[in-house]
């Protein structure tokens, strides 16, 4: 069994979306990190990183949220975020808002760069395709880290997603402000996903997965959107279970 790792104090930043809509992802992060020997804290006063406000042009309204994040997570040696987008916001935008963030890591970065683990001991017997979300790909530059983690998962059949690096069309309020363009982008992404024959679509961001999942659900495509953390947390003893129609 892994022993206590020398990672210092690790905090989970669940993000407002995951906390409210996708608690399974946050629970998976905790389970995974604890399995790998970290002890994880969840500061209760965390809320939202402020990205939606900032990206929609409400810069001043993002500032109190950024300050809250900075103060809630002050003093931790690592803050783990299961979202490339929110991690990118904290790391690359907070300095512009004159907020100094602590060391924030997107999940795959934390596993590979900090813990130095690629094989997290997961088991996931499904056909999976991976969509690199724009912000984890380009803003954070996580590169192939999520793929390296996925390749090491036992039982997992990884199939390449055509045009993987094309945006899914979410883009926060873009999905509402330019709903028609966003839907057209989503439709193309959906057809690429269906082409793979995968039964699970994964990514490192629940926001994009919510968008793509919304499209898959409308198509009744039978492809499940599953956050990377939930795949990595799945083991033979405690496997991921296909969600039923009701949650």
């Amino acid at each position: 069994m892994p022993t206590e790792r020398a990672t210092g104090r690790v905090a989970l930043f669940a993000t407002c979306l995951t906390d409210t809509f996708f608690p399974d992802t946050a629970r998976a992060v905790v389970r995974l990190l604890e399995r790998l020997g970290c002890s994880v804290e969840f500061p209760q006063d965390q809320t939202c990183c402020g990205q939606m406000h900032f990206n929609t042009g409400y810069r001043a309204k993002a500032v109190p949220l950024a300050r809250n994040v900075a103060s809630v997570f002050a003093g931790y040696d690592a803050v783990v975020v299961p979202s490339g987008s929110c991690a990118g916001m904290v790391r690359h935008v907070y300095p512009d808002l004159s907020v100094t963030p602590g060391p924030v890591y997107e999940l795959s970065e934390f596993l590979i760069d900090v813990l130095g683990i690629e094989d997290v001991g997961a088991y996931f017997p499904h056909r999976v395709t991976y969509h690199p979300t724009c912000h984890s790909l380009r803003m954070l530059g996580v590169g192939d880290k999520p793929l390296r983690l996925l390749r090491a998962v036992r039982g997992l059949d990884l199939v390449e997603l055509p045009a993987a690096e094309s945006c899914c069309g979410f883009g926060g309020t873009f999905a509402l402000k330019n709903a028609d363009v966003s839907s057209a982008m989503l439709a193309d992404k959906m057809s690429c996903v269906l082409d793979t024959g995968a039964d699970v679509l994964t990514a490192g961001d629940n926001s994009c997965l919510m968008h793509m999942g919304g499209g898959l659900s409308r198509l009744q495509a039978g492809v499940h959107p599953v956050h990377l953390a939930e795949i990595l947390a799945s083991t033979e003893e405690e496997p991921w279970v296909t969600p039923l129609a009701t949650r």
Partner: protein
Amino acid sequence: MGDTARNPVTWLGSPAFPTAAKTALADDQLRRNLKHATGLIRTKRAGAVAELPDWEQLRLSGEAIKDDVLANLDTYLLRFEESVAARGGTVHWARDAAEANEIVLRLAREAGADEVVKIKSMATMEIGLNEALQAGGVTPIETDLAELIVQLGNDRPSHILVPAIHRNRTEIRDIFKAAMPGTEDLTDEPVELAAAARAFLRRKFLSAKVAVSGANFGVAETGSVVVVESEGNGRMCLTLPETLITVMGIEKLVPTWQDLEVFLQLLPRSSTAERMNPYTSVWTGVTPGDGPRDFHLVLVDNGRTDTLASTVGRQALRCIRCSACLNVCPVYERTGGQAYGSVYPGPIGAILAPQLGGDMHDKHAASLPFASSLCGACFEVCPVRIDIPSVLVHLRAKAVEAKPKYSPEAIGMAAMSWVMAGPRRFRAAQRLAVAGRLLSRGGRIRGLPFPGSKWTDSRDLPAPAKESFSAWWKRTRG
């Protein structure tokens, strides 16, 4: 005209982007054409760029040179003006579109021309020169093939590099047949189309007394002007007529010939995915007995010094108009260029047009910075490393500032910020959100009233979880 204060960089009467995009999206043929064309050039560009091991280094140099130019623009412009004058050229300064148009029209008339040939003229499209010339009794003839197609079709450009990217060859044949005498039997074979254009243009080249050109670069140290192109028509315009008038944005300078070397590598690979463009023409002042007898350079500001004043936004002036950002943009790929309502479409258009236009109270201009999912593909390919997403967000803030303070969106954003800045308020809101499950079936929400319908028209929305993660943590661990 009543509208003289308006900067023509955005087309008068253009609807806001979402509306224009909806129309474009409905055109299946357009979407197929664009998908094919942008997909092809995207792959080719990636290949051409991958050949150079020092590409990142070149991008950094390109960025640094342009930043130096922008930081010392006054100095370089004066040096440029001096060098041009020393070689027998005449420099004219134009604060805005109206001034620039007046200068060109006056020069054309003084040269006794009722027709001018044109090449590489983004800047002249920006200021609406063709319309101004026409109003003044001078007929402009575009000589770039794609621009000619746009002009003869009474159309508007839709791409920086391939202005007629939205037209297929059958449409082009019909345009030619209608506008060129002696083309009754024209087919839509590309070779025939090219030959028809060639015959048409030859006559124009040989008769025109005046040419109007744009410029890709101006070299400050020698007063040289550079045009890169693929067809060679530019070279005809630059050498045959007696008078050459070059219209150039003030930001197009590079300090020295050595700096030019960087851009002559960055530009062709980024724009046409070629190692080197087929024609590179450089001209410096006038040379007795060779080329034009008169050379006039019109340096156009038209919103550029205002753009320079913004520390975030000024990087848009580094743009070398390669169009790489258009070709990778998922929004452009689906809507085409005309939806942007400006000669500058795509990601660069979304940050350049509103800045040059300078009026965020204009609904159309204010919609452009939102025409992006902020996916960042444009920044990734930009040869001069313009951080387009950051400029978009910066301009979104400007657009919000120009809106009424109490718009529904502003109130909603303020309320959400207030709730989320207070952790206890946020937890309370989360508990309330669970009520949203009432709208759902099987954890999915399939239809919401407006504005939520903008989401649910094409995708489902998950219902909030029965128990949030934080509630779970508190219950089990807290």
